[in-house]
């Protein structure tokens, strides 16, 4: 199809558009996220984040589907978070999970590798937590204790 753009219209709009972002469309679709291997990350591992989400979910006796629904996040991404250690979650997803699990967003962002601030203590505690928690077994008293201890650390400012 032929469109008649006048020079005056184009320049009027260009000057109006100057300094504005114009992108539209749903971004971060699962199919693209999975392919985005070159995506630069700020962390070495998101294992503690995945473990944390999985244990919190099991502790609340929620299925993956139910958590995705209740926290209003994509099911595909939740599965990636729990089972793919290399997956970098979307900021919005981490935000929603922080709200849902009632932990500070900033700290959870850091555990998820989405923050440029780096609190060494939180990093160490995250790795300890990941080492202590076994995601395959049913939630044992030890896991529960590990989870609760980690939640209390996350909750401290």
């Amino acid at each position: 199809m032929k469109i008649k753009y006048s020079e005056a219209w184009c320049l009027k709009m260009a000057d109006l558009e100057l300094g504005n972002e114009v992108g539209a469309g749903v971004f971060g679709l699962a199919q693209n996220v999975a392919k985005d291997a070159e995506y630069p990350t700020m962390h070495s591992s998101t294992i503690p984040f995945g473990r944390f989400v999985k244990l919190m979910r099991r502790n609340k006796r929620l299925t993956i589907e139910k958590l995705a629904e209740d926290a209003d996040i994509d099911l595909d991404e939740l599965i990636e978070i729990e089972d793919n250690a290399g997956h970098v979650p979307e900021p919005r997803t981490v935000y929603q999970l922080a709200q849902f699990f009632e932990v500070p967003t900033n700290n959870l962002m850091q555990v998820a590798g989405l923050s440029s601030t780096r609190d060494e203590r939180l990093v160490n505690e995250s790795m300890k937590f990941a080492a202590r928690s076994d995601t395959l077994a049913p939630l044992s008293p030890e896991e529960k204790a590990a989870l609760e201890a980690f939640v209390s650390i996350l909750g401290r400012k």
Partner: protein
Amino acid sequence: MTAEVSKAYLREATTGLVKEAEVWDSIVEQHLVDWETEWKPYRDMILQAHRAAGVSLLKWPQSRHWDWRNKYQCVQGMLSTPSFAVMCSGMTEGLMLLDLSLHRCQLPEQKGKHLVYVDFLEVAPWNWKTSIGHSPRYAGVGSLLLRAAIERSLEEGFKGRVGLHALPQANSWYGKLGMIDFGPDSSKSNLHYFEMPLDKIDSFIGKDG
């Protein structure tokens, strides 16, 4: 399949000069090659600059996940998903995919009517306005593409009706154009849905001067 090309103009942001541009009524292989060989490396450079500067991920360019080749391959040959591209000096400057079938108007005065839904609209990363580490090259690419969506809507008998989900950094732009902001849409990653009322369509395409 050959694309039809319309002549248009862009403003070179750095010099203020007027540049001749082309609006293609179909994405072709050349555009995808530009995306792969020019857009992606530039985009990665911008992302590296954001990383080096310690910018919070929330403020990073929000179309960083998009894969145009993948998207295009999914919809190639489908009548309901026409595509457009903007070129300037032999380089692809913007890409857009539309959907003519699966969305209906939300505005009360045109509720349920057909519209052209802008499925994806992106400009080349060197035209991104809010990214650090570079000065944006051209202004006007987004307007040429939105105009093409409206013209397609007119051609289909949809009276110029268009709707889209804006990236958060683009909310203010679509608001400025007089599109109605329906707020965050929980079914679309909480992006805001915008729809253009009929009177704004005329003023956007310049019918009323």
